């Protein structure tokens, strides 16, 4: 192989990868594309052989979803629940994760394992106790219990994620701060926290995804005035295929806000993960 060939071959490979990846991406996005098309069709054209690709698009179903079904109320509820979850989950998880990263590994290990064991318990078995708790505290159809439940089931992941970040921040920094007379709280807040910001962004994004999309607890713990989007969307499904175009429009509607958020924050996601979330 001559020296001039190598860059050429490399360029050709890059093109091949580019093409392969493009094809894969299109195939991979097919379910989404198809759902978008379905939401623009009348139900009669939605499920045909051969598939109907040319049709007269209608925005009727989107209109129904957004303007006839209190969509904005559900969206508001979802945003409150998601924001609440993120705002509690990330600080709490960061504190615990920091402490975990600063205690001896042999004590941290079992705690982390225990946290994950909790995470594996089937959620549906928690739904009934949660509801009993909610009834007892008169907190059904309020945001707070749903938020706390979501924070709780999300804590193990947040702690584990943040733990990786804090491990990556040298202990020397804490010790230097301690020598300067900082308390552990001050060391954490002034020295460590700014360095962990990329990690917190990642943790926040994952908490957001979980809380925005969660269905079961939201079904059980919300009521008329606090219903979140996934629960509301579920009611568009079923029984009659005239509602399938509506289901599709609803599904697209619920995706849009979170897609926008993710598009805006995507670079922080990669940057944050790169910064060391996964080096634990």
């Amino acid at each position, binding site marked *: 192989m001559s020296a001039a060939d190598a860059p050429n071959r490399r360029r050709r490979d890059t093109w091949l990868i580019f093409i392969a990846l493009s094809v894969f991406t299109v195939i991979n996005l097919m379910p989404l594309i198809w759902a978008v098309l379905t939401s623009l069709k009348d*139900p*009669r054209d939605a499920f045909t*052989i051969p598939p109907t690709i040319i049709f007269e698009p209608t925005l009727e179903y989107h209109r129904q979803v957004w303007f006839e079904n209190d969509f904005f109320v559900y969206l508001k509820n979802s945003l409150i629940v998601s924001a609440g979850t993120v705002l509690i989950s990330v600080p709490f998880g960061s504190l615990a994760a920091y402490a975990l990263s600063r205690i001896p590994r042999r004590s941290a290990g079992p705690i982390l394992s225990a946290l994950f064991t909790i995470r594996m318990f089937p959620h549906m078995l928690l739904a009934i106790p949660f509801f009993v708790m909610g009834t007892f505290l008169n*907190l059904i159809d309020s945001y707070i219990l749903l938020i706390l439940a979501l924070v709780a089931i999300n804590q193990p992941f947040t702690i584990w994620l943040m733990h990786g970040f804090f491990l990556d921040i040298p202990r020397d920094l804490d010790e230097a701060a301690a020598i300067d007379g900082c308390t552990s*709280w001050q060391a954490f807040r002034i020295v460590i926290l700014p360095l962990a910001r990329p990690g917190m962004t990642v943790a926040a994004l994952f908490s957001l995804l979980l809380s925005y999309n969660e269905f079961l607890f939201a079904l*059980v713990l919300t009521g008329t*005035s606090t219903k979140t989007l996934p629960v509301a969307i*579920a009611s568009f499904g079923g029984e*009659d295929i005239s509602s*399938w175009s509506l289901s599709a429009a609803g599904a697209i509607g619920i995706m849009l806000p979170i897609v926008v958020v993710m598009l805006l924050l995507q670079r922080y996601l990669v940057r944050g993960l790169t910064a060391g979330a996964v080096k634990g």
Partner: protein
Amino acid sequence: MDLRSRPVGALAGVVPALLLAAMAAGPAAAQDTIRIISHRQPALEYYTGKMAAALPEGRVTVELMPIDRELELASITMSSQSDAIDVLYLNDASFQRFAANGWLEPLDDLWEKYREEYDLDDFPQSVIDAVSYDGKIYAMPIQTNTELFFYRTDLLEEAGIEPPTTMEEYAAAAAQLHSARTAGTIMSLKPVDAALNEAHWYMNAIGDGWFDDAWKPIFNNAAGVEAITKLKEMTQYAPRGFTAHANDESTINLQQGLAAMGLQWFTRAAAMDNPEQSRVVGEMGWVAPPGGGARIANDGFAISRFSSNDRDEMFRMMAEAASKESMREGAQFAMPPRLSVLEDPALAEQFRWYTAAREAVESGQAFPAMPDFLDVGEIVTRHILRAVTGEAEVQAALDQAAAETESLLASRGYYN
């Protein structure tokens, strides 16, 4: 405690503080509105709408969701005696369950009180029996649903076949009409509810039914085995993917011309003639299911025993929705249980499937009147499907289903 702990301590205090705040803010508003939850389908959308319209604006909130979600939510709510739900839709089988659990409000006194005003005697005794448990009325009947036999008039005519009246004729017709593109018959065998309905038909038309008089399972006797063997045979004429088909999928198969006939609910008939959804407008015909014994169900709305709203007001709300005028209009979505509406000859002229439906109600059969039939169904369906897919022999599968059923019913106190 020294300075270093204070901020963390403050954070730790956030949780109780939030809890208290939330309790103070409380869900007070939820208590004065009447909350109705219901399965979503066109008829129920209509009737819940009527209920909401019966009371002043804002007095009623309606939440529609798929029935499995509705029943989950209702079970959890009512088992913890919460007043979060006031009125709920129940189909026949879940009605028995909820009534037996003591989760529903008996309505006899209100029924008596409003008998005249709403002409409640218009409901036939069979319907009142269906919404009664242990001698007490617990629900306002809202629709009689029945399985019909759907068939493509054009395809049958072309092949020179009469609409089948027996299971043998059905099997022969399905075999004759089956082709690569058009399946001989739809079959809805997705676990659990859809498959249970399909099996119910075979078990009554060919078998001897599910139970004897002492609630001992008899579905594994020779006739029962024959029924499920037939069901299994028929699957060769079913559309691809039938094991994952519930009512929606089967409806689409009929509407898109992918199947020639089969068992489907009354409530799906109108969709066949809806040009926005269907490619077989005007080409679908209906008869009572061959062999008889397909499922009929009387569904209604019930009041939660734990509701803290005025039961008189809620009863009147339900009675308004179930009034003659309301049901006359609702007849386009579902079969009205009121005799005066049902026997109106104009109905059959307006909606082509009513003649078949009234025959189907005569020849059909409801689920066994026991609170635990849905649970029995969970067990039985699974084993029947194992037999259908060849995981087990029919006899062995049914025997095991019978044994498990008996042990379940024993634990629920049936044989004491």
